[in-house]
């Protein structure tokens, strides 16, 4: 007769518990490397996106702050000086020869020099930048609402996404890019920023132009934007997930 709690039983239990934990951990890592399991987990992201759209309106505004809340030094993350000769040449002349190309499914493909963008209606907003890593920083951004630029180029009815192509080349050799849908593209706080904290946008923060999409995480807010394309689908761009980090397993809709 085995008495509950006898040494042999306890040893067995401890051993069973230990190996169960090890098996659990190894199992989790193995599942993460399969094709099907991350797909299953992705349903959580789809539910997140649906819940966020259900709870907040298309035009809900991100919180704006006061000058007193500004981070003393706005953190630069990812690339801080693109390793691209063409970009570095532009930077050497203070981006005097730079122009933003906007094309794709639009009636009037156009180029926008920095001077032209600065001459358009501007918006200044003090907002919180939330990185997917977990940190936040507060900065004052000035730029052209993306809606103003879109009004000039006149998107065609079949255009559904706005793709941002960037100058920065990442460690694995791929170029940074991002995409948003038209809800975010036309959101009042979505701006193409050329100034940070009242000064020209520093190179470390994405000069000459970065996009601000205030209701999503930092990686959506592409720096060093060189070209904007309106597309019906982003499946044909790079690895097809809609952005550099999306191609590496992060969510396309980065609302949480």
């Amino acid at each position: 007769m085995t008495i509950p709690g006898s040494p042999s039983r306890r040893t067995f239990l401890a051993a069973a518990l230990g190996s169960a934990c090890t098996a659990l951990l190894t199992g989790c890592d193995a599942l993460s490397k399969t094709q099907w399991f991350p797909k299953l987990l992705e349903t959580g992201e789809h539910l997140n996106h649906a819940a966020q759209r259900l709870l907040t309106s298309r035009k809900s505004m991100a919180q704006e702050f006061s000058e007193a809340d500004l981070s003393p030094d706005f953190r630069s993350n990812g690339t801080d000086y693109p390793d691209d000769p063409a970009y570095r040449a532009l930077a050497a002349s203070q981006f005097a020869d730079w122009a933003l190309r906007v094309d794709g499914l639009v009636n009037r493909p156009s180029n926008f020099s920095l001077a032209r963008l600065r001459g358009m209606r501007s918006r200044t907003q003090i907002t919180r930048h939330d990185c997917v890593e977990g940190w936040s920083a507060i900065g004052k951004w000035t730029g052209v609402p993306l809606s103003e630029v879109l009004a000039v180029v006149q998107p065609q009815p079949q255009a559904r996404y706005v793709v941002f192509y960037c100058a920065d080349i990442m460690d694995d050799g791929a170029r940074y890019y991002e995409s948003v849908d038209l809800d975010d593209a036309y959101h009042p706080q979505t701006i193409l920023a050329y100034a940070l904290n009242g000064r020209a946008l520093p190179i470390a923060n994405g000069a000459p132009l970065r996009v601000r999409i205030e209701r999503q995480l930092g990686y959506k807010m592409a720096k060093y934007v060189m070209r904007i394309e309106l597309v019906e689908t982003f499946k044909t761009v790079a690895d097809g997930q809609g952005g550099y980090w999306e191609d590496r397993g992060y969510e396309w809709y980065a609302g949480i």
Partner: protein
Amino acid sequence: MTEKSQPEQSLDSRLDEALDMTFPASDPIAVRSPCPHPAIAPDDNVGGSRVKYYRYLRHRLAVRIMHWINVVAIAVLLMSGLQIFNAHSALYWGQSSYSGRPPVLQITARQTSEGRPIGVTRVLGHEFKTTGVLGVSTQDGQLTARAFPTWATIPGPLWLAMGRRWHFFFAWVFFVNGALYVAYSVLTRHLNRDLLPTRDNWRSIGRSILDHLRLRHPTGDAARHYNVLQKLTYLLMMFALLPLIMLMGLGMSPRLDSLWPGWVDVFGGRQGMRTLHFIIACAIVLFVLVHVFEVIISGFWNNLRSMITGHYEVRTNPHDNPR
């Protein structure tokens, strides 16, 4: 185990018994007339007096299923949460991480003058060396700078994107399971009957605290009821900590922060909510440790069986001292 001589009872009669019989909670070791079908085991004598016992359905199937789903969900949420924490292993109060003020908590690594890596944990300005577990730990046989060690995170290696997938999927499992449990508890009166403290419970709270400190547990028929501290702890988890940790998680969403600009300030801003999310997670870990400890010392196999098959064994022996 020898006690298999219990007369057959229909599930319904056991259920009725479990639901209808009430015993005076104010007197935890009182033994009144035992159950309607006492099982008597002639061989099982303790201290010369006969031990009577019976089993009854303590946890219904729905509760058992939801309990074990919760175990999996909380384990995965905790460990994938630590993976996410590792991507930026510092906590702050306020809206921003870069406000000029130092973090509330930081787990980091630095090198000694001889070039050895050491793990450092700073809490409210106090520094602790935590090499081996926090800050610096072994990964693939090498000392590596990482906040929480591989054995505490899902997945093991640093992999933020995958950690987030696990976390959000199981957050939904946890939320749906929890919402179903609350609805179930209200509708079946599980909440009223088993979880809300009775007037007698409130009166016995002092003695219940003493009993817990002395590791004494109700025996006999009194063991059929949750004690008052247990009830209050479950209620605190159900209606305060678990909803709060979910709210703190939602508060980290820039999209949901736009629901009503400024609502996150109520909880100390986005970074404050991240910190509270972490602190509540620690409180849940503490709950689990105490819960498992109590399960072990108040009759491990009986408790475990009751959460698997549903059946809990009550021993009624007037001369048996409470363990």
